[in-house]
């Protein structure tokens, strides 16, 4: 740039400033503030009704913001129409127009802008090629598989050259095998395009696999926003620890603690922290064996043992057992100053 004054480099692609969504008296999104760094893959994760979809729809402009502000590329877009925000949305059911071919679906936004037919079809073919759907450009949406529809929907969103791509549960309609493959493709595409993706999901696996920034939400609030590894190793509270899974939430000497299930072992009560219980279930999962324990007053805990370790010293359902872990593997929860 030949701008004379060295201006501050933009640090965030999307910023939410105390964004709130109320439906009548119900608060769906409660003063959510979030800053999404440039060109990152952000996953909004949470159980249904946690406000993640409402948050996404507010960013898209399909839901008015009751309070607060939304900034995209440092520009306040709170009151702009969806198409003026530089966002594009991929809907949960894809919402491909059933009466238009793939080509016309992808070319739709260009048609709305008055681009002549030949030109818009040529550009649409480019984007169909990007998602490897150029060979099926004349098919109707109903003639495509779920995975193919998903790619057409992606091409239709990308042709608007968005600054931010919004994805509402994009993988939920796909079968498990396809889901993993499409997941890889989404991440690759995000890296290649160098734009921010905001992806709503209720699957922690999906969020862990994809996200640079993982935002765990519950009851309209953000419980934790950090890199997946940070979230997994240091969950902010018991909700996060339970929701992302793989953790035992236990009563420690100074309040609740979280211990990763794969760091727990069977052992004998000694100096190290431990808890006694009974084995409620033994599940063979291939590479690991999961032992479900009933501890204390009906509380559950689980141990993930590598298969070798389990079969070297197998235990049966109903046996008395003691679960042990190392002090450094326990992580305190619900402390007032736990979050960043």
């Amino acid at each position, binding site marked *: 740039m030949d701008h004379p004054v060295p201006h501050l480099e933009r640090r965030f692609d999307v910023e939410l400033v105390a964004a709130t969504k109320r439906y009548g008296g119900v608060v769906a999104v409660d003063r959510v503030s979030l800053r999404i760094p440039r060109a990152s893959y952000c996953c909004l994760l949470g159980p249904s009704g946690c406000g993640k979809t409402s948050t996404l729809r507010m960013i*898209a402009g*399909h839901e008015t913001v009751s309070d607060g502000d939304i900034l995209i590329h440092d520009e306040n877009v709170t009151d702009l*129409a*969806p*198409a003026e925000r530089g*966002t*594009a*949305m991929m*809907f*949960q*059911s894809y*919402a*491909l*127009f*059933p*009466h238009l071919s793939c080509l016309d679906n992808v070319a*739709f*936004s260009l*048609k*709305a*802008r008055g681009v002549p037919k030949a030109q818009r079809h040529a550009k649409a073919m480019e984007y169909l090629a990007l998602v490897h759907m150029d060979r099926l*450009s*004349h*098919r*109707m949406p*109903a*003639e495509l598989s779920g995975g193919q529809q998903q790619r057409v929907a992606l091409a*239709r*969103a990308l042709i*608007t050259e968005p600054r931010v791509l919004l994805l509402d549960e994009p993988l939920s309609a796909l079968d498990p095998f396809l889901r993993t493959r499409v997941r890889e493709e989404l991440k690759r595409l995000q890296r290649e395009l160098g734009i921010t993706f905001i992806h709503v999901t209720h699957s922690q696996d999906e969020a862990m696999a994809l996200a640079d920034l993982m935002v765990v939400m519950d009851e309209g609030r953000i419980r934790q926003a950090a890199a997946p590894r940070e979230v997994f190793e240091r969950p902010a509270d018991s909700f996060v620890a339970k929701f992302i899974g793989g953790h035992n939430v236990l009563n420690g000497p100074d309040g609740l603690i979280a211990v990763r299930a794969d760091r727990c072992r069977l052992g004998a009560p000694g100096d190290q922290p431990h808890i006694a219980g009974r084995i409620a279930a033994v599940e063979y999962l291939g590479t690991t064996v999961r032992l479900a324990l009933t501890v204390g007053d009906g509380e559950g805990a689980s141990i993930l043992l590598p298969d070798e370790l389990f079969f070297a010293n197998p235990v049966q359902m109903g046996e008395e057992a003691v679960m042990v872990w190392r002090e450094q593997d326990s992580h305190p929860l619900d402390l007032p100053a736990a979050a960043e």
Partner: protein
Amino acid sequence: MMVGGARRARDPREKRPWTFYALATLMGAFLLFLYGPMAVIYILSFQGPDGGVTFPMVGFSTTWFEEIWKPGQMANIPVAFWRSVALASIVCGITVVVAVAAGLGFRRRFPGSGVLFYLAVASLVMPSLLVGFGIGLGFRLFDWKPDLFTSALAAQLTWTLPFGLFAMFAVFNRFNRAYEEAATDLGASAFQRLRWVTLPILAPGIIGVAMGAFTLSYDEYARSTLVAGNRNTLPLEIYALISSSTSPTLFAIGTLTTAVSFLVIGGTLLFIRRMQRRRAGAARPA
């Protein structure tokens, strides 16, 4: 035009319970009850030239159909037919425009939407003859001349508009708002969204409503009879003939008008089917 779910084929070795036969008999009786009376008319319309308006059939001929087109007593039938078609077309057009607009409007709650809805329901249960009578009186009050395309049109609309509105509710109920949001997201203006997305997706339902309005108007008697002025619609003309003459020609007219109704309905269904098949349809060459 039903979009059937996966229907399980019956295993031929599976024995049907007795209730199947009982219910099938009941269904058969119901169909006979529905179509029996009209079937009598259709058969008698092919009565031989020397036959009368009752059974038995004396031979078999198309004499009575030919009678319709001959100048004379039946001269008004073709004229009345075209009048009815013209009136039904206008009624159908107005009904569709109003019903689509109302359907779009009723998707969100607005002040008075509940009252408006119940007013529409109420107009459906109003005694039809009295509606016509009221309109006739109103015209007299203002010293207007009742006519086919003014008072009769209005009388028929009191019937087809609420019908069209309810049918349109059903059509809109199945419409996924995400299509419209997607269009908006892709930068379509409100008009482009309506023209390129909402209306094309709803087209099969809208055509269905149009067909319904057309046949309701084409068949209408009670509301039109007091307000049609001096130009009769086809049902009014037929009724006049029934009271003045008795010959199998009446049956022939009945058969013909029914055939027209079925042609309209069948043709529309075929059109909708083709439209839907194109959407779901077989792969077309690129």
